[in-house]
């Protein structure tokens, strides 16, 4: 009864709102605006559809694999997909992926930020342009080339470093070395660090270049030295940009495949030492096993890919949270 009443007699208030809306929209109905709106909205939707499709595909195939898994998917230290029933787990891969990426970040971020600061605040202009260009070129080198370089040049030259680490830091357990070929997590970390250095450097450089002149002058006028200017105005302003840059680098490190597969001697166990060969990463494991895998084996690899996908999402979320936490202190409104 009430319902029909409302539909029969529409309240007068919405009328002007509808009119307003119509007239406000009139500007957007020009052909150019409509085409652009359609294109940009379409691109946005397409992106969401692709993401959803990937997630659905990964989840479906992963669920097939995990339901057949005889071991515990999270904790099993083996990858035997040809057994009946199959037994496999991602513990080793998750450990290896995270450890190698953490090593890469720890090595690359300080160096990249230093290079970016040098190029923007110390180097003469005539020099910073060409150097930045060379760093851009480094980003364009295919990862298999890094992998070949790592296997043929880097690995043979790491014996000295590994021996030194073992001698002085071996007592920590992390840096003990039994003398195997230096194709370990540390090797992977070093190689990944070199690979992600250009992207972190370039994005940081862009961010540091955009620090408003007036913030730097504020520090200078207080009697700050060049380093103090950097500490007081450049680094705080560039902080969120550097975090984003690092996340781009981390994304590449987490997903890097060929270079890791080329330098690592994979085994399916977790080494406490970073110097002893062994371990593996998600991407490397998928690349080296996918070709010969059975249907179940492929599903299992896809399940491990899903875990990598989730880790990447978590890392990105964490980065966003860090940036958002101090938003009111960001330089955006000044």
């Amino acid at each position: 009864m009430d319902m029909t009443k409302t539909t029969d007699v529409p309240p007068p208030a919405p009328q002007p709102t509808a009119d307003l809306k119509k007239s406000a929209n009139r500007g957007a109905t020009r052909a150019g605006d409509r085409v652009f709106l359609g294109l940009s909205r379409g691109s946005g939707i397409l992106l969401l559809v692709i993401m959803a499709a990937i997630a659905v595909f990964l989840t479906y195939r992963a669920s097939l694999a995990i339901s057949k898994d005889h071991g515990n998917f999270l904790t099993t230290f083996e990858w035997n997909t040809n057994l009946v029933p199959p037994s496999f787990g991602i513990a080793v891969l998750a450990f290896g992926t995270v450890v190698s990426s953490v090593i890469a970040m720890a090595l690359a971020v300080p160096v990249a930020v230093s290079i970016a600061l040098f190029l923007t605040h110390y180097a003469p202009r005539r020099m910073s342009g060409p150097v930045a260009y060379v760093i851009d070129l480094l980003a364009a080198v295919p990862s298999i080339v890094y992998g070949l370089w790592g296997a043929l040049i880097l690995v043979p030259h790491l014996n000295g470093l590994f021996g030194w680490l073992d001698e002085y830091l071996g007592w920590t357990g992390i840096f003990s070395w039994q003398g195997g070929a230096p194709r370990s997590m540390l090797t992977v970390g070093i190689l990944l660090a070199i690979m992600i250095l250009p992207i972190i450097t370039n994005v940081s450089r862009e961010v540091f270049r955009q620090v408003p002149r007036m913030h730097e002058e504020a520090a200078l006028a207080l009697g700050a030295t060049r380093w103090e200017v950097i500490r007081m105005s450049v680094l705080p302003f560039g902080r969120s940009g550097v975090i984003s840059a690092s996340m781009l680098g981390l994304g590449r490190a987490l997903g890097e495949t060929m270079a890791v597969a080329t330098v690592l001697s994979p085994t399916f166990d977790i080494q406490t030492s970073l110097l002893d060969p062994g371990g593996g990463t998600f991407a490397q494991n998928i690349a080296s096993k996918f070709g010969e895998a059975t249907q179940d084996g492929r599903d299992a690899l896809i399940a491990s890919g899903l875990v990598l996908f989730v880790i990447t999402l978590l890392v990105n979320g964490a980065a966003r949270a860090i940036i958002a936490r101090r938003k009111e202190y960001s330089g955006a409104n000044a």
Partner: protein
Amino acid sequence: MAKRIDVSGLTAYYGSHKAIEDISMTVEPRSVTAFIGPSGCGKSTFLRTLNRMHEVTPGGRVEGKVLLDDEDLYGTGVDPVSVRREVGMVFQRPNPFPTMSIFDNVAAGLRLNGNYRKNELNDIVEKSLKGANLWNEVKDRLNKPGAGLSGGQQQRLCIARAIAVEPKVLLMDEPCSALDPISTLAIEDLIGELKERFTIVIVTHNMQQAARVSDRTAFFNLAAVGQPGRLIEIDDTERIFSNPSVQATEDYISGRFG
């Protein structure tokens, strides 16, 4: 505490372009000196040579002498960083450090200069904010970001930051040009109080402002675009605005050009 500035034969360049030429003047301690003149005449450039900020601009270089009491700021072995600790500066647009709280903004210069105990720091920050007539407005939110204040408050925060380190001279580069009339009035009142303690030099495009706040006024001009700016005359403000000795000054002040 406040010091006399004595400039002789000062010429400043941007690369090969000569921006100001052969400027000499004396600024008495505990007075306000205003620089006026048309855009591009080198007032700001000259101001920035007084705390060696000019040379941080790429290509910027300076010839001549600037004496602060008896010490030549451009003498050999003088560190520009220590010059800037003696000669503070307030800029055209308020520029508090966006990532710092109000308290940290004021304390920024002190933390550069040395180690202060927590309560010493609290005292100086309070005193500086009171000196900048900002204390009552911000005392309850010292830990909030400085960028959240209004434009006029931000500019007073910048003044508080500059005076916290007890400079000998305070340079102000059009400090009110980005502010509304009420905030401008607050800053002008503040300048009147600050001159009891500091030597103040202020660049302004607002001639009423120069007449209101300054004891001495210097008029700068340039012969033509591309020519270096020169000091036309410097005299007591009253005289400059009533009976200047150079015709160009009178033309500028009465609005016949510029």
